[in-house]
């Protein structure tokens, strides 16, 4: 059963000159074996290597069909079309589950940042490969001592001739285990206040001195990693953006992240989290369909899902129109995290004893329980709920910023991380 109820906005047909493109998209999605119509049964029980392989296969085909990175210029591997074509693709592909989850960060964050800030050489070397998923990139910001306060990061980059030498540790690096490159923020000038002495670099994750250690999560998965860089040498021209201006590159990237995390709506992300309609089915299966408390909660979720869909549409429309991502990404991210929590709690309530324990061959119970266990991370990853609320307070409502004790102090004089 599809949980993508069509809203009036989504049923509007495009201008006639788009019809050729629309039918090209439809034919591609109908014919590609890895594009699965929503509601169809899919084999979720595949390992990570498989899912990366599927993502690469699908993405290469999408690119061959001229349907990847639609609004990017054709000479760097994009579709060379305007945003109206992107909208058509979004509408048509919404009816499918596409195997592109392993590319979410590479495409949602690294690609636009490299496009916005990269040098011509960097762009011509990487953009097409990223678009085709010949290369997958990850983001390397957080450190053990720098979470919400990511500007206090301690990873150092020191110049040595025509090279940079990187030393330090990153943490919560999603997907590093299968990525080719990372965009890493490092401190290039500790004499400056913490936001001002940072720079962004690209790092080859197979280079000497790069060690990737998986972090096992409460769900049993190891999606995140610790990444240690020890005397990792990179060429001087691997700097992305201007020297010591890495914070603005990082902020741009975080904006793209919020948008990517929030714009998916109910059906976004890993696609594992079911919506109100699926839970209604579950309620019937578990004889809870008549329970007024459950029905009340279902209706509430349904309304919030609808609202989140609208927020997602608004974000995509803004992005398609070329407007810089704004604070609506924070709203979407907050709403997504809250919905994930309440949705998965209701699922457990409906399943009851079957969520306490389940037969070893019952994949569906396990999927629901894992969705429950992974929900809290959505309120943390990509900027905590508190960070998002501060952004709304300060940038949307124009409230004064919280007094900060460390904003204008040279980084080397701060007591942060291990610098105590």
């Amino acid at each position: 059963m599809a949980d993508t109820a069509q809203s009036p906005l989504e049923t509007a047909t495009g201008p006639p000159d788009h019809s050729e493109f629309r039918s090209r998209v439809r034919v591609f999605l109908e014919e590609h074996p890895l594009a699965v119509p929503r509601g169809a049964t899919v084999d979720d029980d595949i390992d990570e290597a498989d899912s990366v392989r599927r993502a690469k296969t699908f993405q290469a085909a999408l690119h061959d069909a001229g349907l990847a990175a639609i609004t990017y210029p054709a000479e760097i591997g994009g579709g060379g079309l305007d945003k109206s074509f992107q909208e058509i693709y979004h509408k048509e592909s919404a009816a499918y589950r596409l195997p592109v989850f392993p590319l979410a960060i590479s495409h949602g964050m690294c690609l636009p940042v490299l496009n916005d800030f990269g040098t011509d050489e960097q762009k011509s070397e990487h953009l097409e490969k990223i678009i085709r998923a010949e290369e997958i990139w990850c983001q390397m910001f957080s450190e053990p001592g720098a979470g919400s306060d990511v500007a206090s990061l301690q990873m150092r980059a020191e110049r040595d001739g025509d090279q940079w030498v990187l030393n330090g540790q990153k943490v919560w690096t999603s997907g590093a285990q299968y990525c080719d490159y990372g965009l890493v923020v490092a401190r290039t000038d500790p004499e400056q206040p913490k936001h001002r002495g940072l720079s962004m670099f690209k790092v080859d994750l197979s280079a000497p001195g790069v060690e990737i250690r998986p972090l096992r999560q409460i769900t049993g998965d190891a999606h995140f990693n610790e990444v240690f860089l020890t005397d990792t040498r990179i060429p001087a021209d691997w700097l992305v953006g201007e020297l010591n201006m890495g914070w603005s590159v990082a902020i741009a990237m975080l904006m793209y992240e919020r948008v990517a995390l929030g714009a998916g709506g109910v059906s976004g992300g890993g696609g594992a989290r079911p919506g109100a309609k699926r839970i209604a089915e579950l309620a019937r299966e578990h004889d809870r369909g008549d329970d007024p408390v459950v029905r009340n909660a279902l209706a509430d979720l349904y309304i919030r899902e609808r609202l989140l869909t609208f927020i997602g549409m608004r974000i995509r429309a803004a992005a398609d129109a070329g407007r810089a991502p704004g604070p609506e990404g924070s709203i979407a991210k907050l709403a997504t995290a809250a919905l994930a929590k309440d949705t998965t709690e209701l699922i457990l309530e409906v399943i009851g004893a079957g969520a306490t324990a389940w037969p070893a061959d019952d994949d569906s119970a396990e999927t629901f329980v894992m969705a429950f266990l992974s929900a809290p991370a959505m309120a943390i990853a990509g900027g905590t709920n508190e960070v998002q609320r501060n952004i709304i307070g300060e940038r949307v409502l124009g409230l004064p910023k919280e007094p900060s004790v460390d904003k204008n102090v040279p980084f080397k004089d701060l007591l942060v991380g291990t610098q105590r």
Partner: protein
Amino acid sequence: MDFTLDEREQAVSDLATQILTDKITMERLAEIEAGDEWFDRDAWAALAASGLIGVAIDESHGGSGADLVSLGQLLRAQGATVAPIPLLPTTLAAAAIAELGGESLASDILPGVCDGSTILTIAVQEYLDDDLATPAAEVSDGAITGQKIVVEYADLADHMLVSAVADGRSGLYLVQPGDAGVMLTEGLSSRLEPVWQVDMAHAPCVEVTSADGAVGWLVERMRAGLCAIQLGVTEAALKLTAEYTTERQQFGRPVATFQAVTQRLADQYINVAGIRLTTYSALWRLSHGVDATEEVSIAKWWASERASAVAHASQHCHGGMGVSVEYPLHRYTLWNKHLTTSLGAGTRQLREIGARLAAP
């Protein structure tokens, strides 16, 4: 009751906490999770040697003769240390045998419970079963046929206390898991322990009681016991969170000094206090033979809805560390989820309370 622990209850709490804190270390838990048996036999033996497993069992059977409030303190200590031991099923099956069964059954089984050599478990849940008091499992010719789910320690237990119907009357029966006619199927649980589905086909059984309300009697105590464990779980999770947010620095100061964090944790303190008060009230009424139907539902509601809030806030305020299995907090989240969904989460309690209030 005045909600203050008396001397004996306090002594049980202190002793149990001391033993379990000493035995159940992070390293030990990791070792057990990686091993074949979700059971710290060493901790179990230490509790038995201190007379704690039989704390609520009569002295004539080798116990200490205390009541459910004291047993609640033991369960609370188990929750605080997330100790993998069959405490709730063993002690409450023993209580049912002592209170509802015959003297000969009690003298056969209870001394072994008190000295730690006998493990008991309870099998009262069935699929799609909202009304635990009228199970589908049936007894005929001294043997049970039926299926039970979510049975803890079925593989290690010497006896299993099973709810079943005989001649139209619900009752409690003892079955030996190793007997012919009993098939155990291992299931998964997010608490990382094996949990069993038990299929019985003419499995030999011994009647404990077929008195009216016996299954309800047991389920009420199990729910109250789950609340006591969850009290310990939430208290410990909140303590860990207070420590972590005090230690963890961001923006040049401890994150606990941000009001968004402080106030959220203060709300969790109130939630834990609510779990504590309602749980103590339920246990006290059960111990004193006063009707506790409503108090147990209220306590279970707090220990489901509000414990989820505590778990979520604790995890959230730990940032990424709350998700990582290398830090202790995740176990408290797993236990909270396990306990919340056991024997009816919040909605079921609300329905039961509402049905009584609005009954014509």
